[in-house]
């Protein structure tokens, strides 16, 4: 069980913002942090990892106290036994893939784990290459393997796939799921990609301006929205295409072609040529005066 309460003022894009969150994550959960950029997702990961200090709060991992402002406990990142995967991969350029992994070994740790991880992530052919000679996807795969060498029980992923193309993402998502299950990890992933979240996560924590606005399963968060009717249009369905695990619908509304995402259950009821109702809550519409 990971139990945390964090409070910190952050300098966001819209000035100072109070990040105030509290959550409990049961072991083995694959949790996604979802929200606009600047909502505080990465900051939460960095505070859990010890790379950033909260002003107030606590972090307990399996009853071990990692941080407690009242008791003045603040464990260094080195002592937290948490795996952290960076968006920029952060492989060390002066070492080969295998050397990067060997570097991660604890004192006296059995080296067999490296062979296992190289096999699982299919790095065999790449293990003696330097990171600079690898593609983004290969680097992130190597970084993922390196993160798991110390066998952390908590894995933090800070938008690790956002710089990769779609097919590469798919491959690494599969590795992530495999490793998450095999090593019984608790995983927290920061992601913007709804398809990715639906595919990977058991739970989604939605952040809005530093506060948790929702904690539910991906399907509840992304598909069971109530129609408030703020924006509502009717149109003709022109095309259904599948991308990843989600579907993209092309709908002609008036003279405008609009592309929207849909999930499988929605698509099953639809055929091309149908008249459809399209509604959105439109929290934050752009308003411009026209000449």
């Amino acid at each position: 069980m990971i139990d945390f309460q964090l409070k910190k003022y952050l300098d966001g894009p819209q000035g100072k913002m109070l990040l105030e969150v509290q959550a409990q994550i049961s072991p083995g959960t694959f949790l996604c942090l979802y929200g606009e950029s600047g909502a505080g997702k990465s900051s939460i990961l960095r505070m859990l990892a010890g790379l950033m200090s909260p002003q107030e709060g606590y972090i307990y991992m399996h009853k071990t106290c990692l941080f407690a402002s009242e008791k003045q406990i603040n464990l260094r990142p080195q002592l937290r036994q948490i795996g952290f995967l960076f968006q920029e991969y952060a492989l060390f350029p002066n070492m080969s893939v295998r050397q990067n992994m060997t570097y991660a070994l604890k004192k006296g740790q059995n080296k067999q784990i490296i062979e296992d991880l190289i096999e699982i992530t299919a790095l065999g052919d790449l293990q003696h290459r330097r990171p600079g000679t690898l593609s983004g996807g290969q680097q992130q795969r190597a970084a993922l393997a390196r993160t798991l060498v110390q066998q952390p029980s908590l894995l933090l992923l800070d938008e690790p796939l956002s710089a990769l193309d779609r097919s590469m993402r798919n491959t690494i998502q599969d590795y992530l799921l495999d490793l998450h299950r095999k090593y019984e990890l608790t995983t927290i992933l920061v992601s913007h990609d709804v398809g990715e979240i639906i595919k990977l996560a058991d739970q989604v924590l939605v952040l809005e301006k530093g506060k948790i606005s929702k904690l539910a399963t991906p399907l509840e968060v992304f598909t069971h929205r109530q129609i408030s009717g703020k924006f509502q249009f009717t149109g003709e369905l022109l095309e259904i295409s599948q991308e990843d695990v989600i579907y993209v619908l092309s709908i002609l509304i008036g003279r405008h072609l609009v592309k929207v995402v849909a999930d499988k259950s929605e698509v099953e009821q639809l055929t091309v040529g149908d008249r459809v109702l399209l509604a959105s809550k439109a929290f934050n519409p752009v308003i411009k005066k026209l000449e």
Partner: protein
Amino acid sequence: MLDWQPIILTFQLAFVTTCLLLIISIPLAAWLTHTKRKIKPVIETLVSMPLVLPPTVLGFYLLVVFSPANAFGQWLDTYLGLQLVFSFEGLVLASMLYSLPFMVQPIQSGLSNLPAHFREASFMLGKSYSTTLFRVLLPNIRPSLLTGIVLAFAHTIGEFGVVLMIGGNIPGKTKVASIAIYDEVEALNYSMANQYSLFLFVISFVILLMVYLINGGYLKGFGK
């Protein structure tokens, strides 16, 4: 015939100074890069002072401080047996102070230009700061290290004012090449002065050229 003694002494001084400087500059530059203490700008200023200060000022104060007529100089002499005025050891110390910014600044800028996630990734892998520094950070700033080493070396070869103030002109002990030139000119021995000068000119040119070639990637497999 050219007396090689001053030239040999110059290189001895430059070599010893550079080695010792490297040892103290790495922790100093690392501290300056990563500290959040308020005293940092003061230390940075002190390190950079030799860049703007006339060498004679530095030399003068060292002379005063280390003079056996002074309490500190006397203490050094009595308890450590160190004579820092008009001696090779004194020259090394003065040169180290004088060349400090040339070593510290390239290393510091190299370290601060490295992305923070290298350091953070190493910390997350459970590695201490010193392990991170020596196995991850320094190997990735080799061009900066090389620049620091070479600049400190070349700058020590080229110093004059500090050496003259604290070292004087003792043949075989403190008479380095730059002093020898001054000496020969004073004695109106222009051809000798020219030989020393030409030698220093060529050596400095070659050393700096090496830095630019290596850091510019013209010589493959070294530096980068």
